[in-house]
């Protein structure tokens, strides 16, 4: 049986992705803030015997090409021609949401309206007569609650009925006043006569888009027929000038006014009734009076951020220690049960010390994601974006840049890849590019365990404070970098910004559990697959080629010499017992020194060691020894690899490999690490080249590999200068 194509469309944060996930069983990310979906996604479902393909379109306020999402949504509808469009409408913001519905009606797509969040509307005292609304709009209207699936069966039944009718597109006419209506009629005649763009859009829709100065339609018109396009543009210019002279208003504004007039005329016919006084402050407004207050808001934000990290570090401390003990025990178990050889070394130094270091942070990651999911689901993250807008404008960025920053890990624990993709919401190409190049500065979920490791090892007494400081620093550095870019290679005027604040919602325990587990499981899965593979390969690169026989023989000869020298002294009966111990101790120390020198020489002689050593003259200025260099290079594949590589390198290096220890303790004991080196390393890791996948995404979104190369070079140079400065200044003042 033929699969029916359905599309989910609506305003941002109306609940499209929630409904999509409910209907298809998918687990697309849902957040209580606008702009989560910037591309469309497809899923399948079966209703009775009928199979459907369901497409989740990005949230849009209109079908005019103002932003990338609007272009994606409109192109999809026009090119794919879904059998039914399910328009998700937020019942608690009906008037504003119906603005998009008007445009669907004008486009003529077969429509079913899902009146979502009907429970929120009721709580606000809003009563909606769905049957009346359906009658006036001429399309089915079904009240639903997408969060718990209430009403979705009826919705799908209505969609199936409309799909089975299989009607052709039937555009609705809305009056835009005498002047515009007359022009539209003239344009209609011209468009129909010349079949101008009629294969893509209804004639009236094209005429209205010309009046709205839709850039994409104008460009398509030029391609279709330059002469017709010019005629239409001349007519539109004439009416625009006339309107400006007589009313001082552009046609776009008149069209918007009349659409809202159309909506109001429907709503006033007994569709909506308000039980409460309009001036009543809703709970959301009351909370916002404090949390988005010009002075109290930032204080509350800092406190919430600190609370998140305090919660994360405090609650995860004991489970993290358990995890470390498990990996130490595992290491000892393998050491005692396997004979010495390269395979044992691979298991202990490569897998357990490498992957174990990453997996040891699972409890910390879990608690952090729980806290972030709480903030996200409650709607607080949208308030952070709202407050940051004021600051962003100072640095030449757009308010819409805030959400990509947060998605990339602005609060910690995000990912730069969806962050880069989220920049599609920005309309100005230069603001978009500046955002695109600076979002990788945020502390993504892969950087968090690296920071947690170093903060835990060197600043264990104030973990939450340091984590918060590094988060704020990431924002500050990203904003400074953006300012530099906006003042040099990406100079341009700022564009205005309007942000929608969703209502606060108390997150459900189930929702929090699912979000936390999904993200934690991704972390575990990545550690068990990609990180494991990288750990083994890097272990091999740190092991092979082994030392040449002559060098090994030289070390053996040194050992023999020590043993033979002390062997002469020990049997001497004239030396008292307390003095006998000193040569024996000296002998042990000398032998240990030879062992350390041999393991370090072996590691340096290996493939990875040679690369790390080659970079040491430059990296040493920032405080990084050759082993750290190996880890930092591995971090280009995925930032978690930094931990696993450090684990392997310090397990095989100068610290006694036979002594199982957590990586933090190894670093703390290493003479090459101190507090200044740790800060310098953290700064470098936070700001150097983004990981491989992010770089590819930057190239794709920027439309050029030059920007991707710029991102690698600019970030690495920037991070190096920062790390070098901190290390040199810190060392000069003896802060290590």
């Amino acid at each position: 049986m033929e699969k029916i194509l359905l599309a989910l469309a609506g305003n941002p944060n109306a609940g499209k992705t929630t409904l999509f996930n409910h209907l298809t069983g998918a687990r697309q990310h849902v957040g209580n803030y606008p702009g989560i979906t910037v591309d469309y996604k497809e899923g399948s479902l079966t209703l009775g015997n009928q199979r459907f393909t369901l497409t989740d379109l990005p949230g849009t306020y209109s079908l005019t090409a103002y932003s990338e999402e609007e272009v994606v949504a409109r192109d999809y509808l026009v090119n794919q021609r879904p059998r039914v469009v399910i328009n998700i409408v937020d019942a608690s913001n009906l008037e504003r949401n119906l603005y998009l519905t008007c445009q669907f009606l004008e486009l003529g797509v077969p429509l079913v309206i899902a009146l979502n969040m009907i429970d929120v509307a009721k709580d606000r005292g809003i009563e909606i007569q769905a049957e009346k609304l359906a009658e006036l709009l001429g399309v089915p209207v079904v009240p639903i609650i997408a969060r718990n699936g209430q009403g979705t069966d009826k919705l799908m039944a209505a969609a199936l009925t409309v799909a089975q009718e299989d009607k052709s597109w039937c555009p609705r006419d809305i009056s835009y006043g005498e002047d515009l209506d007359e022009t539209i009629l003239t344009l209609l005649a011209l468009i129909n006569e010349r079949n101008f763009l009629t294969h893509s859009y209804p004639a009236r829709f094209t005429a209205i888009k010309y009046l709205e100065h839709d850039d994409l339609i104008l460009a398509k018109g030029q391609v279709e027929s330059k002469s017709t396009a010019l005629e239409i543009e001349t007519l539109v210019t004439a009416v625009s000038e006339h309107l400006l002279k007589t009313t001082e208003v552009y046609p776009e504004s008149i069209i918007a006014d009349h659409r809202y007039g159309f909506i109001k005329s429907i709503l006033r016919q007994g569709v909506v009734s308000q039980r409460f006084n309009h001036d009543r402050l809703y709970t959301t407004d009351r909370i916002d009076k404090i949390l988005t207050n010009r002075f109290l808001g930032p204080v509350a934000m800092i406190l919430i951020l600190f609370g998140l990290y305090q919660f994360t570090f405090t609650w995860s401390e004991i489970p993290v220690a358990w995890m470390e003990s498990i990996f130490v025990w595992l290491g000892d178990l393998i050491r005692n049960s396997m004979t010495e050889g390269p395979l044992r070394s691979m298991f202990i130094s490569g897998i357990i010390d490498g992957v174990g270091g990453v997996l040891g942070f699972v409890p910390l990651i879990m608690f952090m994601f729980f806290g972030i999911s709480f903030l996200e689901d409650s709607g607080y993250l949208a308030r952070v974006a709202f407050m940051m807008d004021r600051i962003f404008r100072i640095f030449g960025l757009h308010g819409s840049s805030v959400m990509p920053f947060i998605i990339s890990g602005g609060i910690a624990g995000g990912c730069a890849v969806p962050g880069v993709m989220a920049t599609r919401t920005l309309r100005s190409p230069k603001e978009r590019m500046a955002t695109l190049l600076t979002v990788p500065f945020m502390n993504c979920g892969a950087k968090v365990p690296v920071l947690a490791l170093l903060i835990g090892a060197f600043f264990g007494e104030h973990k939450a404070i340091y984590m918060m400081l590094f988060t704020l620093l990431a924002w500050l550095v990203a904003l400074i970098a953006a300012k530099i870019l906006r003042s040099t290679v990406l100079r341009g005027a700022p564009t205005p910004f309007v942000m929608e604040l969703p209502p606060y919602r108390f997150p459900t325990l189930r929702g929090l559990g699912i979000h936390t587990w999904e993200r934690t499981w991704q972390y575990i899965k990545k550690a068990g697959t990609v990180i494991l593979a990288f750990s083994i390969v890097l272990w091999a690169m740190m092991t092979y080629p082994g030392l040449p026989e002559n060098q090994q023989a030289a070390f053996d000869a040194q050992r023999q010499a020590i043993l033979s020298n002390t062997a002469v002294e020990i049997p001497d009966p004239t030396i008292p017992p307390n003095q006998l111990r000193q040569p024996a101790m000296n002998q042990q120390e000398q032998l240990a020194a030879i062992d350390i020198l041999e393991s370090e020489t072996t590691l340096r002689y290996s493939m990875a060691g040679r690369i790390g050593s080659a970079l040491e003259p430059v990296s040493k200025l920032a405080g990084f020894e050759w082993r750290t260099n190996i880890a930092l290079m591995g971090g280009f594949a995925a930032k978690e690899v930094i931990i696993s590589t450090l684990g392997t390198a310090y397990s095989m290096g100068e610290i006694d490999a036979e002594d199982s220890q957590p990586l933090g303790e190894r670093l703390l004991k290493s003479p090459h690490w101190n507090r200044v080196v740790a800060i310098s390393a953290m700064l470098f890791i936070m700001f150097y080249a983004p990981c491989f996948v992010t770089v590819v995404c930057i190239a794709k979104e920027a439309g050029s590999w030059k920007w991707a190369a710029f991102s690698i070079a600019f970030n690495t140079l920037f991070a190096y200068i920062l790390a070098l400065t901190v290390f040199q200044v810190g060392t000069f003042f003896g802060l290590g």
Partner: protein
Amino acid sequence: MSQTLIIILIVTVCVIFIGLRLYRQYKQATSQTPSSGCSCSCSGCGNSCPSDDKDQS
């Protein structure tokens, strides 16, 4: 000697796995398909999950 052979085998498998993974990530990130974009399997990357089918009856 046998240990060295096992290690060569394991490392080869790992290199192939990483190569395929990076290639897939590259292809997914540069493709224009609906599920394009996030393919890094990162813990913070919520948009990476592919859509699963679910029957609703």
